[in-house]
């Protein structure tokens, strides 16, 4: 770090300008927290914290609001998407790093990354026009006639298949986060030193045993960080789910019912909020979402940094 720039006035100016530019990130974070907090303060005063989080009310007419239905929808959709995405993404990462012949590695890697670049609104529209009818006609009736008859699990598949529901939204979201999770897992797998893998092969391990006992233990911090990062992304995804969730404020046991997430509520109702307390409640939801995803992403970053540090030693 050279100290000489302190003598030069232009250098001092340039360092201050760049410094202010880098502080903008900090300003945004504090600004978002502050603004969302002040805007939602009428709702915080009226409904409190615990009551707002646990109330299932969402009634613009009676001006009584609670976050429970939106939180529930967010949790279920995110859970479905992760249950599908995690095994698929790890499978893809294993395929790219260990199985694929060299000439296939790069094209498949690129294809997965292109999938990650497609904007979420395309996924959402595709879900509405293509996936939702397929779900209504084939997949959901099939699920009802098989899993639907099993006691307890059957509760998940009650109701008329409409295609606009928690399950469809979860599937679309999973397609959207698979490439993301896969490319982080692949990068983590790639950090395993070749020599350790070769040693395991020399002991007679099969390819799967090398993956299971060498590669995955070696890269588990990175993979875990990647999964949490995907969780953070999934929590705040709006457009991919806005088309196929129906924005219905209810807590439902069936995955074939319409529901609402925090993001879908905001997208559908923000411009229509006609009273101050309604708008304040929506800001309150946005604040909850921001805090929730910020903490999740910070945890993910913590694990990814630890994984990085471990390998740079």
């Amino acid at each position: 770090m050279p100290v000489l720039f302190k003598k030069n006035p232009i250098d001092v100016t340039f360092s201050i300008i760049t410094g202010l530019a880098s502080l903008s990130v900090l300003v945004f974070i504090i600004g978002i927290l502050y603004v969302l907090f002040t805007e939602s303060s009428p709702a915080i005063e009226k409904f409190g914290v615990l009551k707002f989080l646990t109330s299932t009310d969402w009634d613009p007419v009676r001006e009584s609001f609670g976050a429970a239905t939106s939180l529930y929808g967010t949790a279920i959709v995110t859970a479905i998407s992760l249950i599908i995405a995690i095994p698929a993404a790890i499978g893809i990462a294993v395929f790219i790093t260990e199985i694929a012949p060299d000439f296939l590695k790069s094209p498949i890697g690129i294809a997965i990354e292109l999938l990650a670049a497609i904007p979420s609104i395309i996924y959402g529209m595709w879900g509405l026009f293509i996936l939702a009818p397929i779900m209504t006609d084939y997949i959901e009736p099939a699920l009802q006639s098989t899993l639907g008859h099993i006691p307890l699990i059957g509760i998940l598949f009650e109701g008329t298949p409409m295609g606009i529901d928690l399950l469809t939204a979860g599937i679309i979201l999973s397609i959207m986060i698979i490439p993301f999770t896969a490319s982080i897992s692949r990068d983590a797998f790639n950090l395993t030193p070749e020599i350790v893998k070769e040693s395991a092969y020399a002991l007679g391990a099969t390819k799967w045993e090398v993956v299971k006992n060498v590669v995955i233990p070696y890269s588990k911090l990175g993979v875990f960080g990647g999964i949490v990062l995907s969780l953070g992304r999934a929590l705040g995804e709006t457009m991919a789910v806005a088309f196929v969730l129906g924005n219905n404020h209810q807590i439902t046991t069936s995955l074939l019912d319409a529901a609402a997430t925090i993001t879908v509520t905001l997208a559908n109702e923000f411009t229509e909020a006609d009273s101050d307390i309604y708008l304040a409640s929506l800001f309150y939801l946005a604040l909850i979402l921001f805090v929730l995803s910020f903490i999740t992403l910070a945890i993910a970053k913590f694990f990814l940094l630890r994984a990085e540090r471990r390998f740079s030693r």
Partner: protein
Amino acid sequence: MKRERKRKIESFIALSLSTLAALLGLFWLVFILGDVLIKGIEALTPALFLNDPVPPGMAGGGLRNAFVGQLMITFFATLIGVPIGVLGGTFLAEYARGRKVARLISVLSDIMVSVPSIVIGTFIYAILVKPVGHFNGWAGAVALAIIMIPVVLRTTEDMLSLVPWTLREAAFALGAPYYKVIIQVVYRGAAAGILTGILLSIARVAGETAPLLFTSFNNSYFSTNMNEPIASLTVSIFQYAMGPYDSWHAQAWAASLMITVFILMLTILGRVIIRWRYGKR
């Protein structure tokens, strides 16, 4: 012998499942891109680019207003976001290199990259729409710029850090002040990387819908006034796809095609530049 067989079978099953997962990933890509391509090309007409929307039921409507609005919002977002991002990244990689404050801002930027974009929309609504009293194009551009800044900042920081320190020392030895070293030596060495970061950040915001919903909103008429609500492709897609008319759906597919092609081209261009400059990765 039996045990070995079991291990081999187990390995075979696990590897087959992984291959299946990879095929599944490719299947979705082909499925989604194929649909966008087929339905988009079907609906692609000159009128889409040349005409403004007409009331549903009338023929010959287009999305000229949304194309122009999208370009303007993205252009101004880039104009605001890129300088701040590049300068901020410069501070982290140069003046504050190795300091705690640089680590902190770097980590916070990484988090900001993934923060829900709809939250940024609500934030901008509160500071740029509510005080003015109506939706406006500037609010949309600023919302997108806030999404861009952390992306550009982080890539700039990474790319500047790749420039060897000895190169700077050589310039210092010639008596150059630090700002000259940064502008004339370091920026040149990292130009390709920074450009890629900018391209990828444009690709990132070009498909954003959520932050525009309550900032630039939408406008059925042709407008280039950034002080008024302005149409954008993504918000138009949302509105048209959720609407009841077939002609709207067709136009939404065509608009989706254009946006997807634009973003994929930027993404591929970014990769090509990286590969050309930094060799195979």
